[in-house]
């Protein structure tokens, strides 16, 4: 929110419109014009003029009412670097542990060791990001005060507390060569907990009132799983010798296909809220993410088995693609929380749909 910049010519600068109920709703100049749906952007810079008052009308063209354009819900105050970074690193660590266990079991020792180290590094960095967001290290310990299944963050903290040491032990045993049996057990434990670490963050994001996240609560876990697999297979392509990367190349292709399909499904379900995934910073990031993931998967599949530099380049593209996916989804959520349109319009539609269909109360109480 800006301060007041009132000049003799009236107020200036970007700020909410001065009419709580936009003119369009009162049958104003643009009222009822077809094709001016909720999908238009840049509404606060609207240049419509209000007759005789000499001030710019900043009424949104979207068909909804709001309180001076103020957001209805509060966007999370999380920093993108910390929390979107945490989503990416958690996925890389979790799915990486699965690939490490597979490589361990199939005798691809170089890849196994490298992936164990990468997972330990990623989970350490992600914990550091979390602590940085909380402000003080002792606040992370406070997270383990209770265990609440209704709080994805509580479940995640405990998951992290179990997974971190397992990933650490797996990496330590692989590097030192000590206690091979304990190392194998830790590798297995990390591989079992890893998928949960990679996907619980989707529940963490979806269990909020943020329209772009909550609206996609069914698809988001699969999207996060695909993105995590893409990141881990990319890491395996970067660190593994060419003769050991066949599974990573296969996983990369699977991840890219799944990512694309789930993304499509999520956008279809989201309806008008899906435009937060297509426009602005989120749109740019997600388009880049899809291009990089497709490029990395294709490059890995075609050339990853022959030339090490090409395999590494494909791996880097996959890693960057996964990171862009997480930052893009994060940005879409923030954009959807900051514009009241994405809260009000779908809720009004839901209310309307319920009014026109019978037996509403039964439908309401069922978890979907």
């Amino acid at each position: 929110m800006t301060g007041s910049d009132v000049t003799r010519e009236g107020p200036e600068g970007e700020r909410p419109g001065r009419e709580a109920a936009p003119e369009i709703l009162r049958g104003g100049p643009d009222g009822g014009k077809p094709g001016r749906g909720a999908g238009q952007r840049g509404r606060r810079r609207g240049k419509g003029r209000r007759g005789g008052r000499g001030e710019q009308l900043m009424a949104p063209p979207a068909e909804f009412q709001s309180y001076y354009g103020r957001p209805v819900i509060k966007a999370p105050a999380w920093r993108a670097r910390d929390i979107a970074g945490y989503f990416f690193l958690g996925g890389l660590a979790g799915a990486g542990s699965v690939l490490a266990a597979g490589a361990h079991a199939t005798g691809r020792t170089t890849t196994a060791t490298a992936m164990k180290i990468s997972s330990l590094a990623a989970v350490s960095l992600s914990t550091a990001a979390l602590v940085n967001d909380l402000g003080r290290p002792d606040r992370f310990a406070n997270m383990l005060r209770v265990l609440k299944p209704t709080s994805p963050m509580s479940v995640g903290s405990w998951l992290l507390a179990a997974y971190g040491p397992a990933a650490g032990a797996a990496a330590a045993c692989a590097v030192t060569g000590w206690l091979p049996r304990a190392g194998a057990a830790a590798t297995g434990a990390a591989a079992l907990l890893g998928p949960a670490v990679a996907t619980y963050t989707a529940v963490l994001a979806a269990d909020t009132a943020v329209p772009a996240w909550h609206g996609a609560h069914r698809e988001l876990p699969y999207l996060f799983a695909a993105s995590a697999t893409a990141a881990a297979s990319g890491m395996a392509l970067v660190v593994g010798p060419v003769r050991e990367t066949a599974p990573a190349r296969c996983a990369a292709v699977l991840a890219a296909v799944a990512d694309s399909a789930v993304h499509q499904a999520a956008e279809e379900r989201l309806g008008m809220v899906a435009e937060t995934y297509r426009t602005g910073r989120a749109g740019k990031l997600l388009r880049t993410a899809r291009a990089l993931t497709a490029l990395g998967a294709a490059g890995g599949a075609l050339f990853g088995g022959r030339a090490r530099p090409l395999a590494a380049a494909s791996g880097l593209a996959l890693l960057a693609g996964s990171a862009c996916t997480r930052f893009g989804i994060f940005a879409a959520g923030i954009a959807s929380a900051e514009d009241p349109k994405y809260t009000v319009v779908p809720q009004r539609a839901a209310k309307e749909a319920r009014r026109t269909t019978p037996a509403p109360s039964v439908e309401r109480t069922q978890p979907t």
Partner: protein
Amino acid sequence: MTDHLLSGVEPDPAGDAGHLDAPPRTGFFTDTSVCIGCKACEVACKEWNAIPEDGLSLTGMSYDNTQGLGASTWRHVAFIEQSPPTAEGRTELPLADAPETGSDGQGGDLRWLMASDVCKHCTHAACLDVCPTGSLFRTEFGTVVVQEDICNGCGYCVPACPYGVIEQRPSDGRAFKCTMCYDRLGAGQEPACAKACPTESIQFGPLDELRERAALRVDQLHAAGVTDARLYGHEPTDGVGGDGAFFLLLDEPEVYGLPPDPVVTTRDLPAMWKHAGGAALSLLGGAALSFAVPALKHLARNTGRKGWR
């Protein structure tokens, strides 16, 4: 865990939270039709709860320079300046003496809507459900309170709230919101805002009694021709199981900055965990497939080379 603890009708939130012999659930009924926008509630709340100031800049949008509820604003008076449509039977309230409409049709028709907003103390409170530390709890009065010495500033409650009420204070990152003056309730007193309200726009009491009173008030207003009067947040069957603080509004909720159809996000949590489990298994399955395919290829190549006799 049963479904009704996450969503739907919940007759006894305090009892289900473990309070034995809980007193009747208390709440706020804010009747905006008699609010005069004096902001006594905002001031009384700040004074009693010793809330720090949160900026003194003018917004330039209306007389409302507080803008919304937040970490340091637990009562907020919305101030809506409207040119109400006269068609379609919308009610005109004699709230402002507007000059007669000129021949060009400009200059007339103005009304002010004022409403004191507050934490809704939801029956199913998303902020409470998602708090990872147990800092938020359900009091014996059925209200929702943050324990500031336990809050660790993760900020998860902030996007979880479907009303955009709770917020982190930038200075220390911890989350704050209305406590319905938990300290005053414990001493048998009413909250500071209700005490300070000069027009009884903010009414405090047992929730059941308030709901009855609100229903009477709506009927009264409808009989007086104020057909736009409607209650908001009073239904125990709504998306949050009904609010502990509900409102009488004179226009659509979104005009006041309230969500038209809020739903507690944890209603969908069982489905989310199920899908996360499915996604985790898909990840494992995909990885297994990725290791199986090269192995099978290798096997096929070897058998092909050797051939079958």
